[in-house]
């Protein structure tokens, strides 16, 4: 297919031809094209369908403000729906398809909606589909959902890489048009660290689209020279294809660099996009302006576009939607388009200018005081109906119409911290307000300075002011400086199906209905009609809707208001915000020291927070996890087992006030206990609820090791630092977390001492007399390696925990296994650990669930009333001390063989089963190999006095009801004889 609408000149590289496909047809293009420009050059105007009425759509713009020409780019797992053809940089082999149409773009069945449009007005769905009630989910909604939406996702995992990074600079310049380039030149020559970011692949902004001269040269030559100079500066970083998406707090800007979107194939390892967080105390917003359309009847046909876009396509891309075009304008800029197109050999049928005093031209006809009142053409513009000043009509036979209603400064980022723009009467447009994000200044057209010279000048000055530069500014090139005045002209009187938001199909009629029904605030207008809610976020439509609402309400535009601009400036792939954190890399994985050894043993692992812990260690022949776990429990209780408990938090507490400090942290007494002893401690939150439990071991007068549960290690450390720094600042005490520094293993079971005696160096007496229950101390192992030994037990057996510096953890585990062979030592995982602690009736995470008090846990007497400790006072509130308060109990099924369900609720033996009769719940449950029965721990109202009671354990969720007996939580060795053995 030939490029029938390719013009001469332009910034495309004609020496290379690129092949691409749109809707499975082959076309050719050149480097420098966008998909939109290439399609236009190939004579394609129809590129999409609108959201609601499925009207045919072509391009409206030549940039990121595009609402219409949305396509599905690429194929398979790389398919990207809703991609703006106007910003897709052409590459060889590009494939794109139109979307939101069935069966084809030209014949779209849902175009029937357009015929029904009088029924489908703004908000019609709020008034109907209510009868019968069940029909909504079953019938109406599925219908609406299928019709709605735009493109489709591939439903396959995104295969590309994404990355994130930080950048810092003295001045971030957002936008590389005349203002941005001049600002970069000024700051760069002064030696400042500069980042110049622009969303386009070609720097230069609007200068690339204009035919006028800078210093007697084409503007693009000045751009090329300037970019060359900037590129050579080591202190200037040019970032094309980089959209600054948001201005966040304290000078942090989000920017998305499209590093791979313009490539046919991403080289391995190269990210598709990078999210940059740019930290800059100063930023200069040089984002230019966006042209605004005029609403008139049927103004949405393919071929009707912004006049400035028409000019961009002709000048920069050497493409035109048609060989014969017209212009509809209310300002001089529209005439510039006519002149440029005429110079390129495009026939100008007429310039329709609403002003009676519009300038005239010798090259083409100007219809002064005229307006476009209708258009025709089913899949593309064919005729334009013009109402002339004398009241007569004239039909223009054209394939394209450029429309200009003036230009709106791109103030977007100035509002990201909730600043409001202010109304400029001369421009009839919003310009940046007084409250800008701190450190941000605005230059050029974004600041309402609409001439090229003005933009250059304000860019230079803006940079100089931001950086407080002294001395002369760089010499500015000569450039056009025609004063710009914009008289508002929003819509043609009498029009009704005149589009404001072309993607969402919001027309002038809808705005009128919104007003009629009382939805008059801008936000109501937006939400009721969906104006400005499309993928372009109303960049070309919000102003028109606002102006019409203002007129209907008899108010000025600034009185009527403006909607809030929110990040991102243009839509950003979700994957870009996620970067590399996906799949296994989503969160860091913490490995305990015995991990690799456990892996060799074939352990099954489980995620515990960020830790990966061995859950059980299956042996050959074991087919069910219970076999492994039961064996681990039995063998530990019969002889000896070893479990990696490194994940428990360890906090080293040192200082002359360390004991006093712990006495304040724990609710039970800690002031006096001997060196070489370990004590169980319960920490409360200030609200009197249990925070965590663990042990504190006193290694020296001024040295303690505090342990926490795995889950609360971080929180407890933070809390202790809070108490130390904020509540007790003069205490001589220091804290440091040593969780990762020490590998710690529980060695449990009747033979644990015998095993450890083979490990601990002989000069240390670890007999029951020399190292009794709750003893602790520094020892050496394996011939001189420093270690810590604690005689504490979670399993209820005679047990120790032994700690060595982490780098010896793997070796110690292997040594324990080797030396333990004669005792038939068994490694056990978290599951056996949990079974044994349930058998012993120790509370763990399921019981310390953030709502249970010391009283609930059966430890009310531990809360000392003789001292000031965190949480003690508020633990005394009456609601926490009710006579029927929940108390921790054990439960056993009455019929052996029945299962206890964690999460089941306890109900009286008879009576109704409902929330009102709820007596408590089961927190933990397990099969106990020691008792040969399922058992559970739970909380029961007045549970302390209900031992022996028969109750029903109900779990309607899993459809189970089991008769259970309330028993002591200490199923195994209630007297604690084993652990003292």
């Amino acid at each position, binding site marked *: 297919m030939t490029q029938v609408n390719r013009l001469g000149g332009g910034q495309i590289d004609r020496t290379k031809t690129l092949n691409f496909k749109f809707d499975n047809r082959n076309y050719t293009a050149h480097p420098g094209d966008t998909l939109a420009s290439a399609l236009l050059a190939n004579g394609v105007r129809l590129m999409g369908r609108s959201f609601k009425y499925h009207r045919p759509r072509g391009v409206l713009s030549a940039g990121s403000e595009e609402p219409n020409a949305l396509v599905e780019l690429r194929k398979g797992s790389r*398919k990207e729906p*809703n991609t703006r053809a106007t910003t897709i940089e052409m590459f060889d082999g590009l494939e794109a398809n139109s979307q939101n149409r069935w069966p084809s773009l030209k014949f779209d069945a849902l175009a029937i909606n357009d015929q029904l449009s*009088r*029924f489908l*007005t703004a908000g019609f769905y709020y*008034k*109907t589909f209510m009868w019968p*009630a069940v029909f*909504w*989910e079953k019938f109406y909604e599925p219908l609406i*959902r299928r019709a*709605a*939406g*735009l*493109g*489709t*996702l*591939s*439903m396959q*995992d*995104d295969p590309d890489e994404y990355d*994130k990074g930080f950048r810092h600079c003295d001045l971030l310049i957002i936008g590389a048009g005349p203002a941005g380039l001049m600002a970069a030149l000024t700051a760069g020559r002064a030696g400042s660290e500069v980042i110049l970011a622009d969303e386009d692949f070609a720097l230069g902004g609007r200068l690339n689209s204009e035919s006028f001269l800078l210093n007697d040269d084409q503007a693009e030559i000045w751009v090329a020279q300037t970019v060359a100079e900037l590129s050579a500066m080591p202190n200037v970083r040019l970032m094309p294809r980089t959209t600054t998406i948001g201005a*966040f707090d304290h000078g942090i800007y989000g920017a998305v660099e499209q590093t791979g979107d313009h490539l046919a194939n991403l080289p391995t390892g190269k990210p598709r996009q990078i999210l940059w*967080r740019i930290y800059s105390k100063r930023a200069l917003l040089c984002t230019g302006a966006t042209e605004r359309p005029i609403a008139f009847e049927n103004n949405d046909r393919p071929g009707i576009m912004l006049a400035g876009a028409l000019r961009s396509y002709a000048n920069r891309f050497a493409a035109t939607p048609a060989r014969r075009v017209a212009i509809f304008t209310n300002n001089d800029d529209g005439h510039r388009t006519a002149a440029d197109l005429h110079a390129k050999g495009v026939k100008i049928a007429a310039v329709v200018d609403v002003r009676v005093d519009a300038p005239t031209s010798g090259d083409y006809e100007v219809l002064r005081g005229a307006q476009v009142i209708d258009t025709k053409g089913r899949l593309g513009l064919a005729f334009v109906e013009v109402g002339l000043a004398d009241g007569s009509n004239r039909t223009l036979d054209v394939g394209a119409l450029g429309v200009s209603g003036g230009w709106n400064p791109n103030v977007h980022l100035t509002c*990201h911290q909730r600043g409001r723009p202010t109304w400029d009467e001369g421009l009839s447009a919003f310009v940046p307000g007084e409250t800008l994000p701190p450190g941000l200044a605005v230059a050029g057209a974004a600041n309402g300075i609409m001439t090229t010279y003005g933009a250059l000048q304000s860019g230079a000055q803006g940079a100089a002011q931001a950086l407080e530069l002294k001395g002369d500014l760089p010499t500015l090139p000569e450039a056009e400086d025609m004063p710009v005045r914009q008289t508002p002209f929003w819509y043609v009187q009498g029009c009704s199906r005149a589009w404001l938001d072309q993607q969402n199909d919001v027309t002038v009629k809808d705005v009128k209905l919104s007003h*009629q*029904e*009382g939805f008059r605030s801008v*936000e*109501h207008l937006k939400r*009721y009609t969906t104006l400005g809610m499309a993928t372009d*976020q109303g960049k070309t439509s919000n102003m028109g809707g606002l102006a019409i609402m203002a007129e209907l309400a008899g108010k000025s535009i600034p009185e009527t208001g403006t909607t809030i601009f*929110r*990040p991102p400036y243009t*839509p*950003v*792939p*979700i*994957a870009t*915000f996620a970067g590399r*954190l*996906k*799949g*296994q890399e*989503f*969160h860091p994985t913490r490995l305990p020291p015995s991990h690799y050894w456990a892996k060799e043993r074939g352990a099954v692992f*489980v*995620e515990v927070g960020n830790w990966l812990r061995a859950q059980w260690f299956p042996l050959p022949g074991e087919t069910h996890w219970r076999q492994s776990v039961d064996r681990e429990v039995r063998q530990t209780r019969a002889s000896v087992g070893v479990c990696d408990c490194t994940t428990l938090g360890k906090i080293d507490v040192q200082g002359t006030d360390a004991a006093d400090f712990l006495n304040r942290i724990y609710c039970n007494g800690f002031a006096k206990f001997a060196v070489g002893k370990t004590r169980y401690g319960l920490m409360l939150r*200030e*609200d*009197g609820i249990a925070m965590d439990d663990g042990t504190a071991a006193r290694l020296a007068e001024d040295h303690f090791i505090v342990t926490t549960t795995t889950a609360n290690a971080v929180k407890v450390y933070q809390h202790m630092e809070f108490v130390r720094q904020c509540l007790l600042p003069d205490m001589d005490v220091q804290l440091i977390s040593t969780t990762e520094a020490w590998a710690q293993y529980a060695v449990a079971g009747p033979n644990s001492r015998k095993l450890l005696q083979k490990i601990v160096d002989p000069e240390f007496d670890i007999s029951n007399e020399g190292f009794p229950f709750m003893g602790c101390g520094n020892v050496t192992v394996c011939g001189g390696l420093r270690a810590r030994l604690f005689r504490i037990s979670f399993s209820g057996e005679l047990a120790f925990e032994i700690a060595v510096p982490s780098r010896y953890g793997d070796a110690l585990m292997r040594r324990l296994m080797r030396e333990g062979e004669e005792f038939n030592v068994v490694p056990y995982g978290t599951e056996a650990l949990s079974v044994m602690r349930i058998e012993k009736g120790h509370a763990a995470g399921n019981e310390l669930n953030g*709502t249970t008090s010391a009283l609930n846990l059966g430890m009310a007497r531990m809360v000392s009333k003789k001292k000031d400790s965190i949480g003690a006072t508020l633990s005394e509130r009456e*609601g926490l*001390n009710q006579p029927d308060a929940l108390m921790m109990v054990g439960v056993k099924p009455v019929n052996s063989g029945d299962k206890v369900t*964690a*999460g089941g*609720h306890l109900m009286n033996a008879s009576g109704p*089963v409902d*929330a009102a009769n709820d007596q408590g719940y089961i927190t933990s449950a397990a099969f106990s190999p020691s008792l040969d029965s399922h058992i559970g721990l739970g909380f029961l109202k007045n549970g302390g006095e209900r031992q022996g009671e028969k109750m029903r354990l109900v779990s309607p*969720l899993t459809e189970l009801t089991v008769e259970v007996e309330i028993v002591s939580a200490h199923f195994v060795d209630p007297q604690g004889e084993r652990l003292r053995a």
Partner: protein
Amino acid sequence: MRYSGFQVIKEALTGHKGWKPAWRDPEPKPQYDILIIGGGGHGLATAHYLAKVYGHRNVAVIEKGWIGGGNVGRNTTIIRSNYLLDGNEPFYEFSLKLWEGLEQDLNYNAMVSQRGIINLIHSDAQRDAFTRRGNAMILNGADAELLDADQVRREYPFLNFNNARFPIKGGLAQRRGGTVRHDAVAWGYARSADKNGVDIIQNCEVTGFRIENGRCLGVETSKGFIGAGKVGCAVAGNSGRLMGMAGMRLPIESHVLQAFVSEGLKPLLPGVITFGAGHFYVSQSDKGGLVFGGDLDGYNSYAQRGNLPVVEDVCEGGMALMPMIGRARLLRMWGGIMDMSMDGSPIIDRTHIDGLYFNGGWCYGGFKATPASGHCFAHLLAKDEPHPTATAYRLDRFRAGRMIDEKGMGNQPNLH
């Protein structure tokens, strides 16, 4: 005017000339029986139920901006009643039942869509906790269903089942949960309240309370003094600011919660998914946008906007859960101000000032609570005693030690 399919057709054929404003635009009267401060979902719902259920028609709702502009207009539209604790579950179940009949009650299609919600399970402890919760729901008359991994996979085959850092081990489903078109809730309640005689007064900002001898007589506003027999405050997000004018300190902090929407896509997500381990939840609107969110930014804020770290955190959660959304584009982010209470549960109660009533502390459960909150607040205002499903939502529960702490986080609001 009654809305119906017939009416839509009739108006379409006659040029839409007959549609009336959805609510009047009255000037405030000098005195009302009951004055509601806050034209958000809860305030408007309160007015609706006061008029329709409790027969109070001399009622006004005053709103400092435009109605529905607070959290009812900036949430992620989810409804559910999957709560654990006795103080909460009956209330949220009451709310869900009101949602189920909302359109017919209001004659307004708020698109209540019971497409189901699934809370994913990633560990045994989480399954235990969700089992307890599911049982509590059923015991309170709600629906709940425990799914294993295969069942979740059948419904959501595109979740990350192959390479997940936190493997999906099941889910707790509530089929009656779903989403609602949030703006329409405010409009529907406003229209109904207005029809029943309630004055809805926009652009009317409260500047102070008139309190004499321990009794609230009315409020000073930007439109002058408005007297009232009873004043009900329903301004969640700004509760601290407003009640400060009455000299009250509250067990509430204001925090920013961000929410996000993607570009419109053809249907891909049937229901609501909550990924607790990854701080991410998502649904798809009827218009096709993926509506998603995550955690609070974490610091006190009235700014209605947040910062990048949470945006990244939420999207990381999204990619971890369903890597196929990578190429969907995030279109817009925004922030709402959350009344974060000290136990994560709300307050509907009298204050120590006669005639002054408070409704707030909704944390991020406010939207789903809208009908029940309105109903229960109306009940309290009309009868001076709490509605049976809202008896736990007392202001003095912290003094009494009767917290309703679903998450077990204690008195740190940003953790709830």
